[in-house]
């Protein structure tokens, strides 16, 4: 059961980050040079894979599993709560939704303004694509390492992340400039809830908690957190709407 949840969590987290990275790669490719943008992307993906292969096995070898689970659990809790907070604010209408088409247009305009050097390679496209993929991918590396290591399923987590990168890449190439149609906030909310559920589970195990139902407790935690998150957003939205009606001016 927890393996399925782990695969879904890693896949969704990777897909969300890759949608953001793809926007940058598409902007660099279409406005500058496709070849350099793809080279920058390839180098970034290799660097990220090297990070996973370099850090993952050493951590498992040298750090005791209970300490590893506690530290990873705490990291997942902080990381997941940051994702969830932003997603809740977006659902409540207090934060603008991520618009990939708008980001794409801004990035293209910015890149077109940079003069082109007559060379077979475009260093701007390379650097922009590399930075975009590497920085967005770092979050994926953290998710893969934390979830993969604590569950002793680093390979499964890595394959799941790679599958997301490939699928998002293929879909991205087909739909090109329609990335804004991806339900990013819903995906981010799901990932946020999954990360805090795994975080609670692993941090608890690291502190000696014996969860009822063993790994099945993760599913219970997901349901409980999702329910409370929805209740809070729903309650806030309804209070906000009533307040706006009676005072002619809403918060935010």
């Amino acid at each position, binding site marked *: 059961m927890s393996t399925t949840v782990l695969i879904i969590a890693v896949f969704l987290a990777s897909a969300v980050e890759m949608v953001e990275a793809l926007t940058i790669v598409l902007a660099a490719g279409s406005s500058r040079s496709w070849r350099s943008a793809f080279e920058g992307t390839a180098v970034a993906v290799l660097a990220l894979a090297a990070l996973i292969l370099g850090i993952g096995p050493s951590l498992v070898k040298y750090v005791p599993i209970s300490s590893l689970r*506690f530290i990873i659990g*705490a*990291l997942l*809790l*902080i*990381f997941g*709560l*940051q994702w*969830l*907070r932003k997603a*809740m*604010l977006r659902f*409540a209408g*207090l934060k603008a939704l991520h618009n990939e088409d708008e980001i794409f247009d801004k990035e293209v305009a910015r890149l077109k303004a940079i003069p082109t050097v007559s060379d077979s390679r475009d260093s701007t496209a390379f650097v922009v694509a590399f930075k975009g993929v590497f920085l967005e991918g*770092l979050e994926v590396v*953290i998710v893969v390492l934390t979830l993969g290591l604590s569950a002793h399923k680093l390979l499964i987590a890595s394959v799941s992340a790679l599958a997301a990168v490939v699928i998002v890449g293929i879909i991205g190439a087909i739909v090109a400039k329609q990335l804004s149609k991806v339900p990013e906030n819903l995906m981010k909310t799901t990932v946020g809830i999954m990360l*805090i559920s795994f*975080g*609670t589970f692993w*941090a*608890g195990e690291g*502190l*000696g*908690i014996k*969860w*009822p139902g063993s790994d099945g407790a993760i599913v219970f*935690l997901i349901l*409980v*957190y999702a329910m*409370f*998150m929805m209740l*809070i*957003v729903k309650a*806030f939205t309804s209070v906000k709407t009533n307040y706006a009606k009676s005072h002619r001016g809403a*918060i*935010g």
Partner: protein
Amino acid sequence: MKYVVGFFKFWYDFLIGDTPEITAAIVVILGVVYFIGKGNRYQAPILVIGVIATFTMAFFVEVIKKARKAKADK
């Protein structure tokens, strides 16, 4: 030196960033769960309720910030 600063900045932004209240709350909750002791039956409920309280608090901290900003802008 630039890389050392960059390394710590990355981890600071990643762990604390603009939401120090989340990191502080998690440190406190995990500390409480640790101190009440292994095998204590209240460990799990405290951890789960603590996490729910943290995301509720983080959400409303931002709501209050936005409400204050809206009031100041008027």
